[in-house]
């Protein structure tokens, strides 16, 4: 007597498929999906009773050019076949060009096949004798091979092995198997995509972490390098200062000039180190803003008070043309540096007797602070270059050689103001006609200020302040 029954009710087929779909498509992990594919039909749908014993999923590995067993149902027959096999199942790889192999034919023709003779599906990896031994151990009579496809791609082959003859397979069984194979195609594709996606996500996560580490390393390095640079520069600067100021011996006019220029250049070098540190901090996002409500007029007065001695020395007038304007939401120390930089620039590029004036304007959401001078001005085409790193415009606001600038001040200022959601613009009517630099800062309570409050870089363990501008060195 056969140890199986025949024919499930056709009406059950759709219900059964739906059940399988639910089981398989609910899982995304690749390993879990492929195992469920091989087990669910036998256990959940009771196909064991119908004589089905082993379900094997094989998938094509295009890169290696082989068809490989991916999963195998967990049944006693499968275990027996495995135990009898000369080569462990998971090591069996069938070349995609093995034309005589029935699995490969199924794959290429995209059509189901069946066999009573296992050498058909194990050639050329196992000898006919070895394949027959496996089949005997398992007690399988027939294996049906179904291509697993998705759209126009064939992913692999499903093997349904049973202890009955092909003639005993009902139409309903065949329907279910066909439907099941389609679901498997979808499930395998999904699981593959999901696995690729999570692998990519993991890789990206890793790369991102590494970048953060590198950024920190770079920052630490710049920090250490600037410390190491400053130590000898401090010595050079200080000893030159001694020579120039302690007057332990009378210096000749020439010597005084030589040492003076050496001193000046050291100051420039120190400024450059400070500016590079600032840029490193700004660009790695380690500059935090400590926002507060500030009266722009008051802030400008504080800056002007600081620069008056230098302006007097250069025989320049500094005027503040006051006007009542709204308070702005800013990091006071940082905008202080920006305003010092702008006024300092104007002092640097204006001849004795000239004037630097600061004016205010308001057009919500911004207050505008403008620094206007009667200095060298600039050509139109140079105006955009101003805010670039190391931009050097002849005779102009970023020139480094004789002016002693670093070529970085305006870039840093613009970066800081941009962090505040404001902007710096430059305007000049032309060479020798002076120029105007205008900073816009968000008015407290405006939507721009609220956005700033939300988005401004917050103080963290990593955040750093700005290096201060040396006033003696404008």
């Amino acid at each position, binding site marked *: 007597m056969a140890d199986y029954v025949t024919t499930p009710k056709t009406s059950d087929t759709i219900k059964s498929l739906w059940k399988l779909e639910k089981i398989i498509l609910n899982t995304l992990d690749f390993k879990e999906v492929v195992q469920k594919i091989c087990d669910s039909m036998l256990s959940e749908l009771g196909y064991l009773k119908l004589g089905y014993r082993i379900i094997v999923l094989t998938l094509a590995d295009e890169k290696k050019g082989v068809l490989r067993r991916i999963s195998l149902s967990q049944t006693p027959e499968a275990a027996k076949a495995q135990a009898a096999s000369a080569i462990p199942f998971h090591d069996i790889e069938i070349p995609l060009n093995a034309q005589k192999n029935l699995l490969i034919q199924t794959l290429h023709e995209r059509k189901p096949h069946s066999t009573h003779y296992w050498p058909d599906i194990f050639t050329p990896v196992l000898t006919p004798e070895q394949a027959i031994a496996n089949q005997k151990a398992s007690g399988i009579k027939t294996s049906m091979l179904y291509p697993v496809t998705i759209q126009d791609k064939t992913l692999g082959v499903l093997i349904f092995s049973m202890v009955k003859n092909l003639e005993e397979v009902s139409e309903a069984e065949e329907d279910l198997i066909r439907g099941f194979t389609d679901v498997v195609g979808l499930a395998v594709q999904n699981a593959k995509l999901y696995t690729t996606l999570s692998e990519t996500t993991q890789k990206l996560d890793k790369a991102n972490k590494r970048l953060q580490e590198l950024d920190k390393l770079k920052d630490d390095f710049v920090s250490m390098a600037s410390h190491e640079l*400053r130590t000898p520069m*401090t*010595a050079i600067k200080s*000893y030159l200062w001694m020579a120039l100021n302690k007057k332990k011996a009378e210096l000749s006019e020439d010597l005084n000039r030589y040492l003076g220029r050496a001193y000046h250049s050291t100051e420039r070098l120190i400024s450059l180190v400070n500016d590079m540190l600032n840029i490193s901090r700004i660009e790695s996002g380690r500059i935090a803003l400590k926002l507060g409500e500030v009266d722009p007029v008051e802030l400008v007065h504080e800056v002007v008070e600081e620069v008056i001695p230098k302006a007097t020395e250069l025989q320049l007038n500094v005027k503040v043309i006051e006007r009542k304007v709204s308070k702005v939401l800013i990091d006071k120390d940082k905008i202080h540096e920006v305003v010092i930089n702008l006024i300092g620039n104007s002092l640097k590029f204006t001849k004795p007797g000239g004037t630097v004036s600061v004016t205010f304007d308001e057009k919500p959401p911004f207050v505008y602070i403008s620094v206007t001078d009667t200095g060298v001005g600039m050509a139109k085409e140079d105006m955009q270059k101003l805010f670039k790193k190391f931009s050097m415009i002849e005779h102009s606001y970023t020139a480094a050689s004789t002016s002693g600038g670093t070529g970085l001040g305006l870039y840093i200022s613009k970066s800081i103001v941009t962090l505040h959601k404001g902007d710096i613009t430059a305007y000049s009517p032309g060479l020798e006609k002076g120029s105007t630099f205008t900073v816009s800062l968000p008015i407290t309570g405006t939507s721009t200020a609220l956005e700033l409050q939300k988005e401004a870089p917050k103080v963290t363990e990593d*955040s750093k302040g700005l290096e201060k501008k040396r006033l003696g060195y404008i």
Partner: protein
Amino acid sequence: MDKKRILLVEDDQYTRELYQEVIKDEGYFLDSVTNGEEGLEKIKKGGYNLILLDIMMPKMSGLEVLRSIKNEPPKIPNGPIVILTNLTNDPILNEAYGLNARDFVVKSDITPGELIEKIKGYLEESGNKEKTKQEQK
């Protein structure tokens, strides 16, 4: 009047010798040592009106010196401790303030002349505090 006593803890020889020269030229009494360990020994003995302390030094860093003093203050007290460094790192700066440093001076940003002005300021400030304390007594 007694000479004010200043302690300089600085490992870089050129910087140390230069500061020695300008400080002594001003008529102060100066002790100078080349690392944090020696610095801590001197500080423990107490009696300085002002201490100028570098951060990055061999054997013991300035921060470690500050920590050690905070945990175990010297029996004979000293004047203010000012960090004199070329490090400009906010976390270190904040920690130094947390450990009772009076100020944080970046060496490359000042001239020897400005250092002397600062020293005068610190000494005057702590002298005034002393006075108020004595008057209160």
